[in-house]
């Protein structure tokens, strides 16, 4: 047994009171085993991962339990000794590699720093083993890539360099804290494959923390499901996937099964014709984009970050007037700039944002926000306004007492509901949803998607749904537009786009989305190695 944590209790501080984050948790790990920790945000995954290093964040404290690593009790030893273990025998890979590197130093110098500091190896030895790790992690040009600075490599490469850094001292245990969450799917698959291979080949033990079930299915031998600081269920991966026991686990598994029957009828409410756009007259981010949106349906715009999907939303809303091309709404040509559009037109196109937090003014009460939209555009006041606010709250399944609350007093899912209500308050024809569920936990995200679908049925509103998540697309889209580097790669009804034959990019995108099958990653890689459609594109990790 490499790591044995028993009866761990951790408390966090808020203002003056301590409240429990981890309520008595056990965790054991054998050498060469990968343990997956999954759960929603606030479940205590990261806290537990850090506790495995005998570490608690600022404002947190470990109050009970024992942490025995390789026969040593981490809680009993002084901090100075624990520090000697960290980085050398236990390593940590953080979510955002970009924020974890010092931009002023070369990658290789940062990778060998720990080894040098603790005198584990000489500079040339450390360099040699790091280059070896770069090679194992399939980084391009492993001999020289270390000479670059962090901004000179891509996000996926940086995450792999960080893995190499963690492994530089050949630790026995590595804690991966959501290492691929910030990456695009096509990049994520590369990082996952590299990490999996290295951990397996070098026979390391790892704790892999994520909220993505499909990812954990690929990486872990054993899965622990956490909620509210307690273990819900623990089982080997295959058993956990095929036969979850607890209701909560089952509900997590069920999230991905949401489906909608496609229907592409209806007249065109929005037509984007040959739009080309650029920021500040510089690089063009949209090239000759044409999209048609049928009334009362959902068109999903799919693509990686940088594909121009959010820019498309800015063109439609008038925040970014296009260089050429037109946007027609209800058969009428929209003035290109926001300032030229009359109030009656502004009402008809609404927007819901990815992050509910910056989208809600923290100083205004929910009732005020909804009320302002209602009275400004629909001219309601007094009782009628009050009644409409109540209706809206009911529509998003929140009770009337919420109108007095500030955004701070709501959970993430509730905030997103309020954003939806604000958009629908003015009875729009078209709602642009910009990644509205990607910042939310899976169960909450599913609730939001269900709400959006129900509101579409009830109100007949049209959605332009921007996302990078194929599972979401399958759940809500009628039509799909696939975008890549500012161009439309493919568009059409959902069934058509999702079934072969695909253009090369669609193929790559679709095959990169992790599935809930523990063999998925190996199969995909094997297929790509045989020369599948996306192989060439995968080689050139941007």
């Amino acid at each position: 047994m490499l790591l044995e944590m028993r009866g761990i209790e951790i408390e966090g501080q808020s203002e003056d009171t301590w409240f429990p984050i981890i309520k008595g948790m056990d965790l054991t790990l054998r050498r060469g085993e990968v343990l997956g920790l999954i759960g929603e945000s606030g479940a205590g995954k990261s806290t537990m991962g850090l506790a495995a290093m005998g570490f608690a964040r600022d404002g947190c404290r470990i109050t009970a339990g024992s942490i025995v690593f390789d026969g040593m009790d981490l809680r009993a030893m002084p901090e100075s000794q624990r520090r000697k273990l960290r980085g050398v025998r236990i390593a940590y890979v953080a979510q955002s590699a970009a924020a974890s590197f010092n931009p002023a130093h070369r990658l290789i110098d940062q990778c060998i720093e720990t080894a040098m500091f603790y005198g584990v190896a000489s500079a040339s030895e450390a360099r040699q083993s790091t280059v070896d790790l770069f090679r194992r992690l399939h980084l391009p040009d492993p001999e020289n890539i270390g000479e670059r600075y962090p901004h000179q490599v891509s996000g996926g490469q940086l995450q792999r360099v960080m893995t190499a850094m963690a492994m530089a001292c050949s630790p026995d245990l590595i804690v991966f804290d959501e290492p691929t969450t910030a990456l695009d799917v096509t990049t994520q698959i590369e990082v996952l494959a590299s990490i999996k291979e290295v951990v397996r080949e070098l026979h390391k033990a790892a704790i892999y923390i994520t909220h993505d079930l499909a990812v954990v299915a690929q990486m872990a031998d054993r899965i622990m499901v956490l909620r509210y600081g307690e273990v819900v269920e623990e089982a080997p991966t295959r058993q956990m996937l095929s036969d979850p026991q607890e209701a909560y686990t089952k509900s997590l598994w069920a999230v991905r099964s949401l489906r909608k029957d496609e229907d592409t009828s209806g007249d065109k409410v929005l037509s984007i014709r040959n739009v080309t756009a650029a920021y500040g007259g510089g690089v063009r981010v949209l090239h000759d984009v044409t999209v048609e949106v049928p009334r009362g349906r959902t068109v999903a715009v799919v693509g990686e970050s940088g594909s121009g999907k959010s820019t498309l939303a800015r063109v439609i809303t008038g925040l970014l007037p296009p260089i050429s091309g037109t946007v027609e709404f209800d058969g009428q040509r929209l003035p290109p700039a926001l300032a030229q559009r009359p109030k009656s037109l502004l009402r008809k196109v609404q927007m819901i944002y990815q992050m509910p937090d910056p989208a809600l003014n923290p100083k205004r009460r929910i009732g005020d926000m909804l009320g302002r939209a209602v009275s400004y555009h629909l001219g309601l006041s007094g009782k009628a306004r009050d009644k409409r606010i109540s209706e809206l709250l009911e529509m998003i399944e929140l009770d009337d007492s919420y109108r007095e609350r500030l955004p701070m007093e709501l959970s993430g899912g509730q905030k997103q509901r309020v954003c939806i209500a604000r958009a629908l308050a003015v009875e729009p024809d078209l709602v642009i949803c910009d990644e509205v569920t990607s910042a939310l936990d899976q169960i909450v995200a599913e609730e939001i998607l269900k709400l959006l679908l129900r509101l579409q049925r009830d109100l007949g509103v049209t959605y332009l749904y921007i996302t990078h998540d194929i599972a979401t697309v399958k759940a809500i889209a009628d039509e799909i537009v696939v975008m890549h580097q500012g161009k439309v790669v493919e568009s059409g009804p959902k069934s058509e786009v999702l079934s072969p034959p695909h253009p090369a990019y669609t193929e790559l995108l679709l095959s990169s989305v992790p599935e809930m099958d523990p063999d998925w990653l190996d199969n995909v890689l094997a297929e790509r190695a045989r020369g599948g459609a996306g192989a060439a594109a995968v080689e050139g990790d941007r």
Partner: protein
Amino acid sequence: MSDQTEPFSAGPAEEIMLAARRSRGKFATAMYELGKAPLTAKFGLLMIVLYILLAVFAPWIAPYGEAEVVSPKVYAAWSDEFVFGTDQIGRDFFSRMIYGARNSVSIAFITTVLAFVLGAAVGVLSACVGGWIDQGLGRFVDTLMAIPGLIFTLVLLTIFGTDLITLILVIGIFDATRVYRLSRAVALNIVVMDFVEAARLQGERLPWIMGREVLPNILPPLAAEFGLRFCFVFLTIAALSFLGLGIQPPLADWGSMVRESSTLIGYGDITPLLPAAAIALLTVSVNFVVDWFLHKTSGLRDV
């Protein structure tokens, strides 16, 4: 998910915290925070309240009138009759100290308010509108700030005369440049938030966006800056009064009082230090309170 009672509630720990925060009223929360405030902040608040009381009730507290000549003897020594002695024309020094609280503090306060109304309004406007208006205003303010402050004020006061209104306007406008800088900078962070864009997409007009969306979110740093600015304005006016261009006689003012009695220092009399000490105490107190307030609103922890 029928087995879950509340499918989209916040975690239990969060809920408890939120409930606790909601259950307390605004006043109770303020009292609670005050109770936890460090000793320096409490001391500062106490002093500020004392100054305000002195200023408001000056006619009732002061033993003699503000400009009343009470003694034929100038520069009289401290005595039971005249606690801090008399000044250069035989007015009671102690009474003038108390009236000084009224004049100096209120004039400094009005000037600071003017600087803030002007500076914050133009600053937020600059941040919201952007473009060449922002550039133009920015360069204009740069130009004003490039001129040494005291000298510039002295020149303007010599040109336009030294009446109270001019004094307030000159210092207010000059200080507004600094408030402009700050409010523009903090407003820029708010303007890029999605809720401001959402308000624009809803077709909200500029005054609404400035006043309702941006301003409430930049109030904490502005309030903290208000305290500091007030100190600087106070010191500037005191300095101008000392040079004879600030608050004019017969109004009692601490700055002028230092000047008028300054010769006494040469004879080992500490009387001129009293108004100076009054200024120092107020500035220090305000700084204590501002420090605490900044700590609270910026979410810094005492580690």
